[in-house]
C-alpha cells in the first residue's frame, strides 16, 4: 500500500476509539506523515456504532474519503454500516468473533488479531484501546520509543502501574502490527514534524484566545461545547471567565454585559441554541455592543441529527434577529483560517460593534489536521475602546457609522446603552428623523467594513472556465478533488467570509463560463445568497444532506459527470 492510506476504526460508543485516533495521528505526524482524521458518531454515550477515519499520506490532505484501506473492527456489528466502503483490497483486522461470517466468507483480506485476548493478557479489556494503538503503530513501523513516550505522557496522572501496563499493551500491539507485514509505504516529510496537530474545536479556541477572548458563556450543545471546554482548560492561564449559562438566551445576553463592561466575550452554540439567541442578537445590533458567536452547525430542523454534520444554518445566521442591521459571518474551511478568522472576529466586533458569527459544523469541529505553526506576533489584539469625556455620546453620528465605544470607569462620561431607538446620547426617542439617521448609521457600518472584507480565494487554474464555489468545511474535499482532477479549466472559489459577500465575488464569478456550487445542505443557501446579491445563477449544484460530509470520491465523480 502506498502514499494515501485510509484507516477506519469501527466500534461502539464508549470504547475510546477517539483516544486511539488522537494518539495515532500524533504519532504519525511526529513521524513526518501527513495526517487527517475525522469521526462520525452516534448520538449516544455507549453502544451503537461509531467510526473514525485516519488518513495517512505523502501529501497534504484535509478531506474525508469513502475508501477504506485498513479496517480495524473493535466490536460486533461494526461493519454493516460501512460495508459499501469496502473493496477487494480492504484489509479487515479484528478478532474473528467480531467479524460476521459473510465478511469472512467475502472477498476481503481478513487478519484475525485477537485484541481482547491480548488486552486480557495485559490486565483486562480496558487495554484494548492501547493495544489497538500499538497495532497501528506497528503496521506503520513507528519508532517504538516515540510510542512509549506518548503513552507515558498520556497516562502521566494515572500512576506507575497503569502506565507500565499500558506500555506493555502498546508493545504487544506493536509487535502484532509488525507481524502483519502489510508493507505500508508512505513518504515522510521532515517538515511535518514541526507542524502542529489540532482539532477544529481547538482552532476556534486558540483563535479566540489570540483574539483576546477573556469571557465565554454557553449552554452545552453538540457539536459546539468543545470550544467552551477548551477555554475552560486554559481559563486559569489566560484569565478567561467561564460560565455555563442556564440557557442560550442567558448566554447571548451575558456576553453583551461582558463586552459592555470591557471584556472580549463570546458564546458557542449550535442551530437550536442559536435560534434562541436571535432576539439577543438583534439587541446587540441596536445597542451596538460587540458580540462574537461560534455557531457549529448540525443537521436540523429541531433536534435533527445531533451528532452529525450539515451546512444548513447559513440562512439562520444571515437573517437572525428582528429588524434590519449589519453583521459579519465567517466560515473557515481549514484550521489555519479557523484560528485567523476567530482571532479577527474579536477585533472586528470591537471595531464595528456588530455581531460577528463564526460558522463551522460538526465535520469541521471534530476533525484533526496538522497545520504550519503560526507566528502570533503577527496578530494584534486591537482595542477600540475609547476613554469617555464628560460629554460622551454613545451613539455619536460619524461618517463611517462607527460611534466611539466607551466602557464604565474609563473616563469621565457615562456609558448609556439602549435597546429602543435612541438619540446620540442613548436616550429613547420616537423622532422619525433621528430614527432614519440611526438606521442609516447602523447600516453604514457594513459599507465601512467592506474595506477590510476578506476576498474569496481561488484554488486551481487561474484561467478557469468552470468555477466551483464552496464555503466553510467543504474546503478540504473540494481542494483535494481539484488537485486530483488537475484540469486547466477548473478552479475552486473558497469563501471563508460568507457575509457580506467578498468584494471580489462578482469578478471571479463572471470570469467563469460555468458555475458549480457545492454545499452540504438541501437548498443551496449560499447559492441563493449569491443570486440575491449578484443575480448570478449556478449551472450545477452538488448538494448533500444526509448528515455526512462529502467524500473525495463523491466530489470527483460528480465533477467528472458534469464535464
Amino acid at each position, binding site marked *: 500500500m502506498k502514499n494515501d492510506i485510509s484507516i477506519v476504526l469501527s466500534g461502539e460508543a464508549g470504547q475510546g476509539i477517539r483516544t486511539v485516533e488522537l494518539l495515532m495521528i500524533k504519532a504519525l505526524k511526529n513521524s513526518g506523515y501527513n495526517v487527517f482524521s475525522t469521526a462520525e458518531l452516534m448520538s449516544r454515550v455507549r453502544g451503537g456504532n461509531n467510526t473514525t477515519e485516519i488518513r495517512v499520506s505523502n501529501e497534504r490532505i484535509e478531506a474525508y474519503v469513502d475508501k477504506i484501506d485498513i479496517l480495524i473492527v473493535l466490536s460486533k456489528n461494526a461493519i454493516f454500516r460501512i460495508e459499501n466502503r469496502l473493496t477487494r483490497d480492504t484489509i479487515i483486522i479484528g478478532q474473528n468473533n467480531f467479524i460476521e461470517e459473510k465478511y469472512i466468507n467475502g472477498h476481503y483480506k481478513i487478519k484475525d488479531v485477537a485484541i481482547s485476548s491480548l488486552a486480557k493478557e495485559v490486565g483486562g479489556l480496558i487495554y484494548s484501546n492501547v493495544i489497538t494503538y500499538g497495532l497501528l503503530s506497528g503496521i506503520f513501523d513507528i519508532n517504538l520509543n516515540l510510542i512509549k513516550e506518548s503513552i507515558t505522557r498520556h497516562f502521566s496522572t494515572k500512576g506507575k502501574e497503569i502506565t507500565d501496563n499500558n506500555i506493555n499493551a502498546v508493545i504487544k500491539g506493536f509487535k502484532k502490527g509488525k507481524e502483519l507485514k502489510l508493507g505500508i509505504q508512505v513518504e515522510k516529510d521532515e517538515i511535518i514534524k514541526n507542524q502542529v496537530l489540532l482539532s477544529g474545536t481547538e482552532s476556534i479556541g486558540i483563535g479566540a484566545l489570540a483574539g483576546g477572548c477573556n469571557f465565554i458563556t454557553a449552554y452545552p450543545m453538540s457539536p459546539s461545547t468543545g470550544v467552551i471546554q477548551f477555554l475552560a482548560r486554559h*481559563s486559569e*492561564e489566560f484569565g478567561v471567565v467561564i*460560565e455555563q449559562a442556564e440557557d442560550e438566551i442567558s448566554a447571548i445576553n451575558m456576553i453583551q*454585559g461582558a463586552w459592555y463592561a470591557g*471584556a472580549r466575550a463570546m458564546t458557542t452554540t449550535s442551530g437550536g441554541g442559536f435560534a434562541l439567541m436571535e432576539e439577543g442578537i438583534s*439587541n446587540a445590533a441596536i*445597542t451596538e455592543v460587540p458580540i462574537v458567536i461560534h455557531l457549529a452547525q448540525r443537521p436540523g430542523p429541531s433536534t435533527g441529527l445531533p451528532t452529525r454534520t450539515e451546512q444548513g444554518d447559513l440562512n439562520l445566521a444571515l437573517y437572525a434577529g428582528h429588524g434590519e442591521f449589519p453583521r459579519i459571518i465567517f466560515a473557515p474551511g481549514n484550521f489555519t483560517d479557523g484560528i485567523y478568522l476567530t482571532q479577527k472576529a474579536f477585533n472586528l466586533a470591537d471595531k464595528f460593534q456588530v455581531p460577528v458569527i463564526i460558522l463551522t459544523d460538526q465535520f469541521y469541529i471534530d476533525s484533526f489536521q496538522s497545520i504550519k*505553526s503560526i507566528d502570533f506576533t503577527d496578530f494584534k489584539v486591537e482595542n477600540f475602546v475609547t476613554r469617555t469625556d464628560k460629554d460622551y455620546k454613545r451613539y455619536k453620528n460619524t461618517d463611517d457609522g462607527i460611534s466611539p465605544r466607551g466602557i464604565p470607569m474609563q473616563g469621565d462620561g457615562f456609558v448609556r446603552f439602549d435597546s429602543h431607538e435612541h438619540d446620540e446620547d442613548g436616550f429613547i426617542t420616537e423622532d422619525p428623523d433621528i430614527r432614519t439617521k440611526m438606521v442609516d448609521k447602523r447600516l453604514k457600518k457594513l459599507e465601512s467594513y467592506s474595506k477590510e472584507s476578506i476576498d474569496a480565494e481561488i484554488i486551481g487554474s487561474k484561467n478557469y472556465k468552470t468555477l466551483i464555489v464552496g464555503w466553510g468545511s467543504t474546503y478540504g474535499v473540494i481542494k483535494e478533488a481539484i488537485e486530483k482532477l488537475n484540469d486547466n479549466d477548473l478552479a475552486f472559489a473558497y469563501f471563508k467570509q460568507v457575509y457580506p459577500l467578498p468584494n471580489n465575488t462578482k469578478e471571479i464569478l463572471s470570469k467563469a463560463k460555468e458555475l458549480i456550487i457545492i454545499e452540504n445542505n438541501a437548498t443551496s443557501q449560499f447559492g441563493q445568497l449569491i443570486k440575491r446579491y449578484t443575480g448570478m445563477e449556478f449551472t450545477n449544484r452538488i448538494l448533500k444532506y444526509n448528515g455526512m460530509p462529502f467524500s473525495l470520491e463523491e466530489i470527483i465523480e460528480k465533477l467528472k459527470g458534469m464535464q
Partner: protein
Amino acid sequence: MTTIFDFDQIPETSWCPGCGNFAILKVLKEALGELNIDPKNLVISAGIGQAAKISQYINANCFNGLHGRALPVATGIKASNPDLIVVAEGGDGDMYGEGGNHFIHAIRRNIDIVNIVHNNMVYGLTLGQASPTSRKEFKTPLQLEGVSSEPFNPIAVAISLGASFVARAFSGDMKQMKEILKEAVKHKGYALVDIFHPCVSFNKINNFKWFKDNTYYLNENYDNTDKMEALKKAFETDKFPLGVIYTNGENKTFEENLITYKNDKRPLYKREVNLEKIEKLLASN
C-alpha cells in the same frame, strides 16, 4: 432633594401621574447618593417595561436591554468588572415572567448585584394584562374571567433557592424603602428587593390603599436570619410583611469563585493578552 444621580435637566418621564415608580426613582437616587456611590461606578441593567424605564432617568451608566434579560446582562457586567456596582431592575413581568429562568439561576450563582423588582401586579407598559404576581381573580382585558393561576411568590422562591438577602418594600413608604435599598446595596451577594407599588392606570384593585391595608412591618424582634421563619413570612398573604425578610450573612459570591480573579484582581478591561503564551499553547499541541 437632588442627588448626584439627577440630571441637570430633569428628563420628562413617560410614567403616569400618580404612579408608584416616581417614588422608587426618587428614593433609589437618594439611597445611592447617601451611600456616596460614584455614579461612574454604577450600572443600571434594566429590562423593558414601565419599571425598567427607570434606567433612563438616573444619571449614571446603564444598559437598557431586552424585556426579561436584565439579570444575565448584569451578570456579564459584574463578572467582567467586579469593581462596578450593578443594579438589575425591572417590573414583575420582566423579572418573574419573561425573565423567570434567569431569576432562578442568578440567585443560585449568588452574583453580587442588587435586583430591584417594581411589583405592581400587572403588565403596565402593554396596557394591563395579568403579571405572574397578579392575585387570583384579577380581571384584565386578557383575563376576562380573572386570573386562575397561583400568584408567583418571589420571596419564597428566592429563599428556597438560597438567596442571601430577600426584602420587600412598598413605594408608599419612602423612608423604609430607602433603608431597605441601602441595605441591599451594602449586602455582599445577590440581593432581592421586591417593591410593591400601585399602577394607577391598570390595576384598580391593588391600589395605594390596598397596599397600605394589606401590608405591615416586620417587628423589631423578628429574626430575619431564620430561614424557616422567613418562609413562613413569605407565605403570609392576609397582610404581606415588609422589610428585610431574610438575610443569611454573606456567602462567597459568583465573582469570588471565578478562577480569573484568584491571583489577579484587575477587571478584564485592564488586562493584556499574552500572544507568546498562545504560541506556546499551540506548539505544545
